[in-house]
Each structure stands twice: as structure tokens, then as C-alpha cells.
């Protein structure tokens, strides 16, 4: 008596207990009057079911017809308009079933064992499936297959004549290269799959497909090379992907955010790429690739920090150039993150550090500037970020022009109006340029945020603030893991052998091992591949 009353009075009773296994209402189950799980022998029942489920889906085409001579076996096909290549469908399904089956000699077979004959002799399709669960039939129709129902057969025949339009294979715009393959992924998983297959022609390349998304039923592919991949990481990836329970997956980022190790971490813990050659290279080093139908970018797990400073081009240029450009990139990383903070710290707290003539010239240019250095640097940094974002969002043809004009005019006018000093402009421009050397766009945004935080600390505490912030940042980075692999991996736990492909790029004949914690223990190549003149 008392307890129910208390329960009613309990103010938080509206908070329901979170149920993990709650079935998401996908809008399908509620509308079907009688739940029909398997395909019926009666064609009429099946037709009714399909009509009910596909009600108001006006792109669904249901075409009843008859097989064989009069009276013939009643049948119907169902498919979605636009997803199916109609010409092919007519040629290889409709014509054999409706026209060829009229022939005298065939009719004899049709009478005896019709279904067998239809399946084995009439349907000229390379890919034929027989499915008896109704829901799966509807599912495959929704993803572009064609279902054939025949009276008396308690299975539906599924043929694949997908014929929708997709983008051509083009060079991805975010990962431009001077040398090396230029093809990039498209939005169709099948095409992407083929692009990877064409690079790795081995049955060891495995592709596991899963359907994720209770409504969208998106195909997600997990690619790896058997014997090269680290089995622990593979198991972990499978577990994490199969745990996902969401209504829709529209891009790889959905998967990224649902499987990453640290959900609130600003750093990219999973590498993304739009290039099949990068995916193939990463697969060969023992990583896994996750592709999603409808997204041109592939996820590559596990990822380490240094990987985001490596461009695919590093492997297509001779190793001296690529090592050098890597150092340039790491230097740019330091400039992009630390330079404004150091400038502010040095000019506000440690003026004695600047050589005297330089200090005097900086002081002279700063004369008449109303703001302290910090405000100057922060404002200019902000203006630069605005310009950058505007340049990206604008139509490509005018974007570049506008951003160049904007930078030049705003910079020049700000100096001549006495709002800012030329050194600040130089620092901001250098920082802004430096950050563009980093190939991974996800990393760039994170670094920009960190740059602003460091700028504040440099202004508040000088060098000491920068040092302490660096320590915090480093220990945060060291605490991160990507699928169990330490994020600072070749440097963090120092693996001297893995430095071969992180801070330098050694020539190919020296790259004998896969990354220590990532790939399996198998070697990439035997010893003694160093080229040289033939010895007599």
C-alpha cells in the first residue's frame, strides 16, 4: 500500500532504466498485420505480404507473370526502381521465364520438376540465392536485388542486377600526390572492394561484411590480410563493430566514434584515407581497414600518432627525399603548435632571450600597437582560422582567390592601421602555412585547438606555462591507446626497429619487419636484398 504510493511520489520516476537490449522501433514491425516469417507456398499470400510491406513505397515495382504454356505457373518479380539494371533483368530473367518457357520441349520439363528446371536451366544469372525468410527477402530487395516468387515454391529466388549510378574513380582532393597512384575510393562499397582486390591479388586478403544500422542496413566491410594481421587486434575490432546498435550509418565517422578507445579524445585515434593504395600498404603492415557503403573514406585501425604525419607519397619517392620531407613535417608540427605561444612568452616574459638588435626592431614595430602581444597573436590567429574555414566552404573556383585577397588585404591593412605589428603577421602566417604540411585533416583541427590553449598558457605563465602544458599534453598522448596499441608507439614505448618507418623512411630493401605491436611477427622480406652490381 505504502510502497506504490511512494513510487508514484518519487520525483525521478520518469527516468526509465536504460535497457541495453531495447529493440529499436524501425517502423516496420508495427505496420504488418500478421507477422509472416517465412515465404509461403501460396503466391497470393506472398503477394499480399509484399504489398503490405511495400505500401506507399511507390518506387517498388511488382510485376506478376506466368511461366510456361497456358495455364502456366503464376509468378511475380519485385524490385526497386532505380537500383536495378532493367535491361539486364529483362534479358536474363524476364525473357527466359516468359518467352523461352513457351517452347514445346521445355514445357515437358516444366511439368515434371519445374523449380529445378527454372533454377538450373532458365535463369541465366551468375548469382542466385534462395531465401526462405520473408524479412531477408525484403531486405535484399531494399538493397538492390530482385526477388522472384513462384507459386508453389516456399522460397524466393534472389538475383543481383544492381544498376545504380555511382561516381567514377577519381583522384581524391584531400590527399593529393605528385607521384604515385591517383585513384580514390567512391561511395560504392563494391567498387572500393574491387579497388583493394586489384592491389592485393591473394586469397589471404579477407573481407568480412556486416550489416549495421537497424533502418539503413548499411554494409560495413572489414578487410585484413590473414597471417599478417595481429589476431588480438582483429578479435577486438570484430567485437567492437558487432557491438554497434544504431539506427543508421551514413559515413565512416559514425563507426569511428562508436569504436574508438577514448570517446572524448580530441586526437584522431583512427586513421582515414580515400586511397586504395594507402589501404593496401596499411593492410600489408598488419592493420585492418573498415569500409562503409556510401562513404569514400576508409578507416584504418590501429593508428599511431606519427602515422598522421606520413603521406602516401613518402613511399613513392626515393627514401632520402621522403625522410627529409618527414622531418620538414615534424618541424612544421612544432612550429604550428608552439611558435605563437613561444613568441608571446618570449616577448612578454623573457625579452632577454631575444638578441638585442632583434629586440629593438620588434619593439620599434610594436610602437603604437594598442594591444598586448597575446591579444594581437590570438586575434590574428582567429582571423586566419576564419579565412581558412571560409576558403574551404566557398565554391572552389572563387575560394582560393578570396582567401588570398582576404589574407593580403586584411594583413596589410591591419599593419598600416596600426592594429597589429608585422612580426605577429609573420608568426601567424608561418604557423598557418606550417599546419598545411600535415597530411591528415583531422589532426590539423586538433592541433589548432591545442595551439590556442598553449597560446593562453604562454601568455599567462611564459616558458614555464608552455613547459607544463607540454608535459600534460605528452602524458595525455602517452595515456592514449588505439585498439590496444600505445598512441605514441614507436617513440612512446621506444621500439628502435619501428623507427624505420616513422621518423625516417628507410629504403625498401631495409624495411624487413612489420610494426612491432601492430602486425604479426612474420617478416616482410628476407635479408640481403640490398641492390648492387653483380659480383663475379
Amino acid at each position, binding site marked *: 500500500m505504502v510502497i506504490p504510493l511512494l513510487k508514484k511520489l518519487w520525483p525521478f520516476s520518469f527516468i526509465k532504466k536504460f535497457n541495453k537490449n531495447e529493440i529499436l522501433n524501425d517502423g516496420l514491425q508495427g505496420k504488418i498485420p500478421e507477422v509472416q516469417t517465412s515465404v509461403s507456398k501460396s503466391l497470393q499470400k506472398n503477394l499480399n505480404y509484399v504489398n503490405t510491406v511495400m505500401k506507399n513505397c511507390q518506387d517498388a515495382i511488382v510485376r506478376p507473370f506466368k511461366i510456361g504454356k497456358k495455364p502456366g505457373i503464376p509468378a511475380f518479380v519485385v524490385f526497386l526502381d532505380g537500383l536495378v539494371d532493367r535491361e539486364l533483368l529483362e534479358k536474363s530473367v524476364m525473357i527466359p521465364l516468359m518467352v523461352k518457357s513457351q517452347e514445346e520441349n521445355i514445357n515437358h520439363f516444366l511439368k515434371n520438376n519445374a523449380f529445378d528446371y527454372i533454377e538450373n536451366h532458365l535463369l541465366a544469372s551468375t548469382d542466385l540465392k534462395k531465401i526462405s525468410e520473408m524479412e531477408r527477402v525484403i531486405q535484399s530487395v531494399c538493397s538492390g536485388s530482385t526477388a522472384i516468387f513462384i507459386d508453389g515454391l516456399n522460397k524466393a529466388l534472389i538475383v543481383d542486377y544492381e544498376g545504380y549510378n555511382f561516381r567514377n574513380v577519381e583522384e581524391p582532393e584531400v590527399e593529393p600526390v605528385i607521384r604515385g597512384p591517383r585513384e580514390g575510393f567512391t561511395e560504392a562499397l563494391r567498387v572500393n572492394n574491387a579497388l583493394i582486390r586489384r592491389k592485393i591479388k591473394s586469397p589471404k586478403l579477407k573481407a568480412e561484411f556486416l550489416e549495421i544500422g537497424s533502418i539503413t542496413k548499411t554494409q560495413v566491410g572489414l578487410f585484413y590480410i590473414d597471417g599478417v594481421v595481429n589476431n588480438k587486434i582483429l578479435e577486438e575490432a570484430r567485437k567492437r563493430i558487432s557491438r554497434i546498435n544504431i539506427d543508421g550509418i551514413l559515413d565512416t565517422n559514425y563507426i569511428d566514434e562508436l569504436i574508438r578507445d577514448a570517446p572524448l579524445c580530441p586526437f584522431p585515434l583512427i586513421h582515414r584515407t580515400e586511397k586504395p593504395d594507402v589501404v593496401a600498404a596499411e593492410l600489408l603492415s598488419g592493420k585492418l581497414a573498415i569500409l562503409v557503403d556510401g562513404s569514400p573514406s576508409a578507416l584504418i585501425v590501429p593508428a599511431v600518432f606519427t602515422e598522421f604525419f606520413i603521406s602516401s607519397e613518402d613511399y613513392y619517392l626515393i627514401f632520402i627525399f621522403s625522410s627529409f620531407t618527414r622531418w620538414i613535417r615534424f618541424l612544421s608540427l612544432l612550429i604550428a603548435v608552439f611558435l605563437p605561444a613561444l613568441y608571446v612568452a618570449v616577448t612578454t616574459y623573457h625579452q632577454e*632571450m631575444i638578441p638585442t*638588435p632583434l629586440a629593438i626592431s620588434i619593439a620599434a614595430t610594436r610602437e603604437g600597437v594598442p594591444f598586448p602581444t597575446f591579444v594581437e597573436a590570438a586575434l590574428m590567429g582567429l582571423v586566419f582560422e576564419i579565412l581558412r574555414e571560409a576558403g574551404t566552404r566557398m565554391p572552389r573556383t572563387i575560394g582560393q582567390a578570396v582567401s588570398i585577397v582576404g589574407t593580403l588585404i586584411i594583413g596589410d591593412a591591419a599593419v598600416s592601421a596600426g592594429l597589429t605589428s608585422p612580426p605577429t603577421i609573420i608568426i601567424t602566417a608561418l604557423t598557418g602555412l606550417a599546419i598545411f604540411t600535415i597530411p591528415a585533416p583531422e589532426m590539423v583541427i586538433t592541433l589548432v585547438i591545442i595551439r590556442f590553449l598553449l597560446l593562453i598558457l604562454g601568455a599567462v605563465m611564459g616558458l614555464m606555462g608552455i613547459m607544463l602544458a607540454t608535459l600534460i599534453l*605528452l602524458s595525455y598522448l602517452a595515456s592514449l591507446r588505439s585498439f590496444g596499441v600505445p598512441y605514441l608507439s614507436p617513440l612512446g614505448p621506444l621500439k628502435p626497429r619501428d623507427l624505420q618507418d616513422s621518423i625516417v623512411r628507410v629504403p625498401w630493401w631495409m624495411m624487413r619487419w612489420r610494426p612491432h605491436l601492430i602486425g604479426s611477427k612474420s617478416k616482410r622480406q628476407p635479408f640481403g636484398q640490398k641492390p648492387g652490381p653483380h659480383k663475379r
Partner: protein
Amino acid sequence: MWLLITTSNSLLIPLSQTAIAAGSRQDSWLAEILSLAIQLVMLQMILKFSLLSKDMEFSSRIKKICGRIVGSIVIVLYIWFFVFSSAAFLKELTSFAVAMIYVQTPSVVIDLMIILTSCYMAFHGLEVQARTNEIILPTIISLYLIGLFLLLPNVKLDNFKPVLENGLTPVIKGAFISSSSFVFTVFVPVVLSYVNKPEECQKTLTIGSIIQGFLLIIATAIITGVLGPNLAQVTIYRGYIALRYISYGNFVEHLDPIGFSIFVLSKVVQISLFIYAASLISAQFLAIKSYKPLIFPTGFIILLLSNIFKNVSQLNRFFITLWPLHNFFFEMVIPLFLWILILFGGRERNLE
């Protein structure tokens, strides 16, 4: 077990301590060589002792050796050591920063920032700290070497003469004072049960301490050579002052902030490792599952405790008088005491 590359622990070694010049003047480099020898002996001893029972947690090991009551006293002494040492380090760092750069900043602000940073680093645990150190250590050593290398032209060989002016006594005294700052030996037994390959410790730690010993010898020699025995003895921040002598082409000069950075980096790492050790032992002692809730209280106790030193000169005097005794008590006396208990107390069998 945690993956820990133990070389990173050599960061614990004080890189910026050259208190030696307080005792043995122009012969301090000799004293440092001697001190390196003493340190190596100490390290071997402590490793022998702590590898006896490498799989057991520190506090239960101590309790097993000494019994409950004496064991508790020893554990509390160890906690005191870590807390007090970090307090001394904190005061050293803060007073340096306030004296040299942040003249108008209240020292509490700097204290607080350092303690919060160290607590954050300690919070992540030993493994993350080790990984962080593997990046910081090469940075510090390269900065250190750059500084020393740039100082080379300023070294005057006359500053080293006459050799052994006052006989051997000041050299030996200096060696003992210098080797007492090898507080690392107290830290090793505490964390040894969390290292995944304890047997490799012996090698890596010996190499690490030899490297740091050589750095210290070179640094001492160069600083004495640059400043001269008198100035080196009188000034408190010798290395920092010496870096001001660098001048190349009127452009590469005033590199003292580099010395400051080395100092900050190494001290903060030391403090964070000591906070970790203190809260780890406390957690084991109080039978708390995780050390994490104890980190911030430990940090604030350190912050308060650091105020028992009133000013820089008092702290500096403390570092060459009481501090060596205090350290030797933990580096030599307690391990010897424990070892004797193991050998004669017949408790050796229980350890296996």
C-alpha cells in the same frame, strides 16, 4: 604486467644538481667521478636486495621482512621520504623560478601549477609516465649537450689548477654529498613489482646511471671551467648563470631559458614520480585498491610541506648539510637494515 622500458627511469637522476662545487672547488669533477663509483655500488646493492622478492608488492614485502610493527614504521618512513623530497624539489624549482624569471608572481601560483601538472602525470600511472619520459629524456639530454657544447670555448683551463689544493678530504666529502642526491635507488624497489622484466633492470639501470654520471662529470667540469671555483661555489644557480656566457656572433646568446626548461622538465617529472610512489605505498599500506584517490591529497601535503623552507639560501644550505644525511639514511641504512634482517632473521625462506 606493465610494459616498462626501464631506461626511462634514469630520468629520475638529477640532471641539474651540481651542488658539489659547494665543497670541493676546482676538484669537483674528480669528486663527481668518485661519486659515480659510489652510486654504482649503491645501485648494485639495492638491486640485489630488491630482486630477491621481485613479484611481491613493496609494502607486503617490507612487512614480511620486519614484522608488522617495525614494517609499518619503515613504510611510513618511506612515505615521508617521498613526500619530503618532493617538497624540497618543489621549493627548489619554485624559488628558482621566482628568483630568476617570475619576480612578481606569488610563489603559491607557481607551486600550484607545478603540483597540478605533476598530479596529472602521476594520475595516469607508471606506464604512461614511463612512455612520456621516453620522449622527454632524449629532449633533455640533447638540450643539455647543446648547452654544454656551446659553453666549451668559454672554459679556461687555469680554473682547474692547482689540482688537489687542499688534499683529498674535500673531494671525498663532495663525492658523498653528490652521490646522496642519487635518490633513484629509493624509488626502484617500490616500483619493481610493476616492471614486466625485472631482470633486465640491472643492465638498463646501470647503463642509465653511467650515462647520467658522465653528464654530471662533464657539466661540473665545464661549469667550473667557465665560472672559476670561486664564482661556482658562491652562486646558487651555477648552470643557469654559466649559460649566460654563451655568445656567438651577437646572435646566439642569452640561452639561459634553455637551462630553465631543462630544470623545469626534469624536476616536474621527478616530483610526479615521487607523488606516484608516495600514493602507491600509502594505498598499499592502507589497503586501498587504487592509488588514484590519494594522489591529490599527497600533492597538497607536498605543497604545504614545501613552505617549511623559508628562503633560497636556507634551502641551499639544507641541500649540502642535512639532506645528504637524510638521503643516505634511506639509500644505505634502511636497505642494509632490511638485508641484515633477511640474512639473520631466517625470513629468507618466507620470501620465496
